[in-house]
């Protein structure tokens, strides 16, 4: 066969390309191109009609010029004309020009529809393929509208040539992906599935791609493909290495088709039909067996093709996650690859093992390779391989090996590439927190992180250590001692100064007894770092100093001296100056009591998803994120960040809270220019909830003699946000693009005070701003909420753009109630809880006293959040009851007691929460002296776990 020679057929084109290549400078090239463009333009405009060959040649030159990066603004019509040519070479150039340039000129598409239609109908397979390829390459909606109906017909027509079927299948796939609505399913779909049986392997290969795509959107319609795919796969896998002739690739039968079939099967769960499943498992086993056979060729192509199938097989095994035997075999196979001399295989084995690590069946098998993986982390030359090793260590980490893995990662960090340091830092921080058994180890690990890679320790990481130290009093003394020691180093990272400054300011008193870390020593140590630090750190240290004055009155004079120094009081930085002035005044003016109140130890931070996790997820692709998710789902972990529900303060995105008041359609802030408009808008805002009371009102009579339906859902499901306040008192109640409403509330006995903060998020003034509280039904008889100030002044009628106004609500609980006041104030009955401590004996006595069936409410429910004892405790405390230790014989269970204080009566409440980690269920039992209260509290609380 004659091979193609240079510029075959178009001498002019070859000459032009040579000229361009010979240009010595960019200018010369542009000059030559302009000359050519002028020439072509004159030819196209000339009187003489061009023959097909010339047209083809000039269009091809234009295409070449375009590909060099120059704009082409003519020649499109000539290209379109070429489509109508009978000659393949001319038609091909026309189609090529359109496919390549179509982005820049979509008008073209309308001009060519006719030509494409003719070619599709031509019964000439070469022309049909050209047209199909053009549609597939352009793939626009206009193309879909014109041809989506024709292509299925061509695909399943009995007389279509194989190559046409191949192209038609993929062309249809492209149109379906671009605009699925244009490709109606029909009787052709069943016939497409049967293409899996086609004799021509190329047709099957193309068809599998199409079916995979279709079945993702319509899994049930394409279910029949499972058994067909399995039998096709089985035939390929069991065939001898030469059976498939053209489709054998380096002694591997049909590797790509096998891979595609295995991926198709991953769209579905394991086959239900036992025979099909048996056959498939046989296939998977055969692939695993073949991996152990000696290679049939030394060529890398042979092993690559074979292993492409192997890795896809392992993916399917992991996808099913139901065959322990296969999972362990897969793991062993990958274990062999971990030490293979091919870097590609080591990389892929690490990557694939990462997913195996999260299967309960293979997690232990993966862990046996820990030494090899650690070694890879230390010795691999390719940073991406080391990264996979770090991912895998992260994925295989559990309580048993956390210390080893964390220490190896820390060691690696010292030499790690800059590119991956931050990620390693995040991973170490997360593992240390997640698997910390004693928190001193956690503190040590984080301080080590700062020491080794301080620059890569982001705010999230050091904030987190402060949160954890603040929330766990068992580690505070140790933390203070450790940071104090760390700060002794002559050169320590600024992040260390931040952590040290904060911790000593809060807990420095815990080590002040030791003369080596007496208050003056602590202060001078911190202050020795002061001048080298950035403004933000110095600001933090100033706060530490004022806390010192409170903690250690003996340091007052020294610190006041520092604050008084000109370098502080007249600091050019406004923040520093202000802090110095204010702290100095505070320390001089305020009494010890006031100072102690102002500078009281920070309250515990609300538990929530670690911000570090969120950051890592943002940073990393699916690999790490999924490993993380897996980790987070591990219910046995007793970590602080086990996927706790976000606190209201983290819920600051507009949309979810917008749902709360049903305000999705709120117009953007710029929309209401007139004052009346703004006023109306806000009336609408508050009309939203007021329209809801149909859900709420509970007539008094019915309330006193409740039928089961009367309790109803105490909180509509949409009020998820509101729900979060059941166990909390402060946070963001509502937020959309216009308005944020924050809540701070406190409750004592049957009285409550609630501060509402209305923040105008727009730059426009709100006028006639007037929030009102609606009591659904006769709630007023149960709960009295009065406004703290005269109505006219309660909230300024105007709220400036960006400003915030405050409203105070005084609330009195007159008697028990179920439905919270509207504007959805987070006032639920449990707010009036008074915790009651009692001994086990008393508890059981009272428990027995409340043994009437109607006094008890019980709910058994599935856990919606990871079952974490610490979190549960925090929630129960936030709910308002006291937590009683050593009452329940089972230490896993929680027992609480409290009294609901209302004006009319007091309701004693006992509760018991029994988690079942195995089943991911809880049983919650409430006993109170008033039946509706039992049920209502039970409902409220059950939604929190």
């Amino acid at each position, binding site marked *: 066969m004659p091979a193609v020679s240079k510029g075959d057929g178009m001498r002019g084109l070859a000459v032009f390309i040579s000229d361009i290549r010979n240009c010595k400078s960019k200018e010369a090239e542009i000059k030559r191109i302009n000359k050519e463009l002028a020439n072509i333009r004159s030819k196209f405009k000339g009187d003489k009609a061009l023959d097909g060959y010339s047209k083809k040649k000039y269009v091809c030159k234009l295409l070449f010029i375009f590909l060099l990066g120059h704009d082409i603004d003519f020649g499109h019509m000539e290209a379109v004309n070429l489509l109508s040519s009978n000659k393949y070479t001319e038609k091909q150039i026309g189609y090529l020009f359109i496919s390549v340039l179509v982005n820049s000129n979509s008008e073209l598409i309308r001009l060519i529809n006719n030509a494409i239609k003719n070619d599709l109908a031509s019964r000439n397979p*070469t022309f049909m393929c050209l047209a199909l390829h053009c549609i597939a390459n352009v793939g626009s909606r206009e193309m879909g509208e014109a041809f989506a109906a024709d292509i299925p017909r061509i695909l399943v027509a009995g007389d279509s040539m194989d190559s046409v079927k191949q192209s038609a299948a993929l062309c249809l796939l492209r149109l379906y992906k671009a605009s699925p609505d244009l490709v109606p399913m029909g009787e052709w779909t069943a016939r497409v599935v049967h293409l899996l049986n086609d004799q021509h392997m190329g047709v099957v290969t193309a068809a599998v791609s199409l079916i995979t795509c279709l079945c993702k959107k319509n899994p049930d319609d394409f279910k029949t493909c499972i058994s067909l795919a399995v039998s096709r796969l089985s035939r390929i896998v069991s065939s001898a290495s030469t059976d498939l002739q053209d489709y054998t690739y380096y002694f591997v039968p049909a*590797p790509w088709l096998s891979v595609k079939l295995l991926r198709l099967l991953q769209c579905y769960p394991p086959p239900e039909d036992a025979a099909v499943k048996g056959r498939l498992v046989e296939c998977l086993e055969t692939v695993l067996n073949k991996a152990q056979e000696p290679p049939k060729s030394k060529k890398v192509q042979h092993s690559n093709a074979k292993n*492409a199938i192997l890795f896809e097989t392992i993916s399917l095994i992991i996808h099913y996650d139901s065959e322990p035997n296969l999972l362990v075999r897969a793991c062993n196979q990958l274990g062999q690859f971990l030490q293979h001399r091919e870097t590609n295989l080591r990389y892929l084995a690490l990557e694939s093992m990462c997913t195996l690590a999260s299967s309960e069946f293979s997690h232990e098998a993966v862990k046996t390779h820990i030494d090899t993986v650690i070694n890879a982390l230390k010795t691999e030359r390719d940073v991406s391989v080391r990264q996979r090793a770090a991912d895998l260590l992260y994925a295989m980490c559990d309580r048993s090996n956390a210390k080893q893995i964390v220490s190896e990662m820390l060691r690696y960090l010292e030499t790690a590439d800059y590119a991956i340091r931050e990620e390693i830092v995040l991973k170490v921080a997360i593992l240390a927190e997640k698997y910390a058994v004693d928190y001193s180890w956690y503190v040590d690990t984080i301080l080590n992180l700062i020491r080794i890679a301080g620059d890569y320790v982001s705010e999230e990481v050091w904030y987190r250590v402060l949160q954890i130290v603040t929330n766990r009093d068992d580690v505070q003394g140790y933390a203070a001692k450790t940071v104090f020691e760390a700060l002794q180093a002559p050169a320590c990272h600024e992040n260390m100064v931040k952590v040290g400054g904060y911790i000593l300011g809060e807990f420095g008193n815990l080590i002040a007894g030791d003369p080596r870390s007496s208050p003056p020593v602590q202060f001078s140590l911190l202050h020795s770092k002061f001048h080298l630090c950035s403004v933000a750190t110095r600001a933090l240290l100033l706060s530490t100093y004022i806390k010192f004055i409170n903690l250690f009155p003996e340091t007052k004079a020294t610190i006041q001296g520092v604050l008084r120094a000109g370098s502080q009081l007249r600091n050019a930085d406004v923040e520093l100056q202000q802090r110095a002035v204010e702290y100095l005044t505070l320390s001089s003016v305020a009494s010890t009591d006031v100072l102690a109140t102002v500078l009281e130890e920070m309250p515990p931070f609300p538990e929530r998803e670690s911000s570090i996790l969120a950051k890592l997820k943002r940073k990393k692709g699916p690999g790490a994120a999924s490993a993380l998710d897996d980790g987070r789902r591990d219910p046995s972990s007793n970590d602080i960040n086990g996927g706790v529900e976000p606190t209201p303060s983290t819920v600051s995105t507009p949309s979810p809270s917008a749902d709360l008041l049903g305000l999705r359609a709120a117009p953007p802030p710029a929309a209401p220019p007139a004052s009346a408009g703004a006023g109306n808008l806000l009336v609408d805002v508050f009309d939203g909830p007021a329209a809801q009371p149909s859900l709420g009102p509970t007539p008094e009579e019915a309330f006193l003699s409740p039928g089961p339906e009367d309790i109803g859902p105490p909180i509509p499901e949409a009020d998820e946000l509101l729900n979060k306040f059941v166990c909390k008192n402060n946070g963001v109640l509502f937020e959309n693009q216009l308005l944020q409403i924050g809540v701070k509330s406190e409750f004592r006995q049957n009285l409550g005070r609630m501060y509402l903060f209305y923040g105008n998020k727009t730059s426009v003034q709100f006028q006639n701003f007037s929030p009102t509280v609606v009591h659904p039904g006769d709630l007023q008889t149960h709960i009295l909420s009065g406004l703290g100030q005269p109505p006219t002044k309660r909230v300024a009628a105007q709220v400036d753009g960006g400003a915030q106004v405050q409203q105070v609500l005084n609330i009195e609980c007159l008697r028990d109630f179920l439905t919270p006041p509207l504007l959805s104030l987070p006032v639920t009955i449990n707010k009036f809880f008074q915790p009651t401590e009692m001994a086990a004996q008393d508890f059981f006595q009272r428990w027995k006293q409340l043994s009437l069936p109607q006094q008890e409410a019980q709910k058994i429910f599935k856990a919606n959040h990871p079952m974490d004892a610490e979190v549960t405790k925090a929630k129960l405390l936030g709910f308002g009851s006291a937590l009683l230790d050593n009452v329940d014989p089972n230490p896993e269970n929680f027992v609480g007691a409290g009294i609901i204080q209302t004006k009319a009566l007091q309701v004693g409440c006992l509760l018991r929460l029994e988690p079942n980690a195995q089943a991911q269920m809880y049983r919650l039992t409430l006993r109170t002296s008033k039946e509706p209260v039992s049920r209502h509290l039970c409902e409220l609380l059950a939604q929190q776990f």
Partner: protein
Amino acid sequence: VRLKGQGKRCKRSEGLEIRFILIQNRAGKTRLAKWYMQFDDDEKQKLIEEVHAVVTVRDAKHTNFVEFRNFKIIYRRYAGLYFCICVDVNDNNLAYLEAIHNFVVLNEYFHNVCELDLVFNFYKVYTVVDEMFLAGEIRETSQTKVLKQLLMLQSLE
């Protein structure tokens, strides 16, 4: 206790799908760019430069895969030319690595192909690619079949 079935990656959002194919020389000159996703011209130029920067710094001890934005590049070097395929991160690396090797049909088609053949016959290279890949999917995997088809087209006027 690890929960059954929860561990697996949520993947398979797409089938085997190619985002683009690039053939570049060591100097970064593009010898073929085939796009299966909509990019505007500036974006294409940026991608071309980035791919070149990522791929040419790697040596034989490195893998043939490199993470690239939210995708990955699977590449193979033949003499002075880099053949690069950009796919989803969950796609099968080795399958694409060998799909690239199917480009050896160029060798027979152009009779010991060299870089210049791709320059002077750029319009034929597109035909070769369309035979092997279409709509971002692998269309034909048999080198014999592809070559037969190419020679048949070659014989047409």
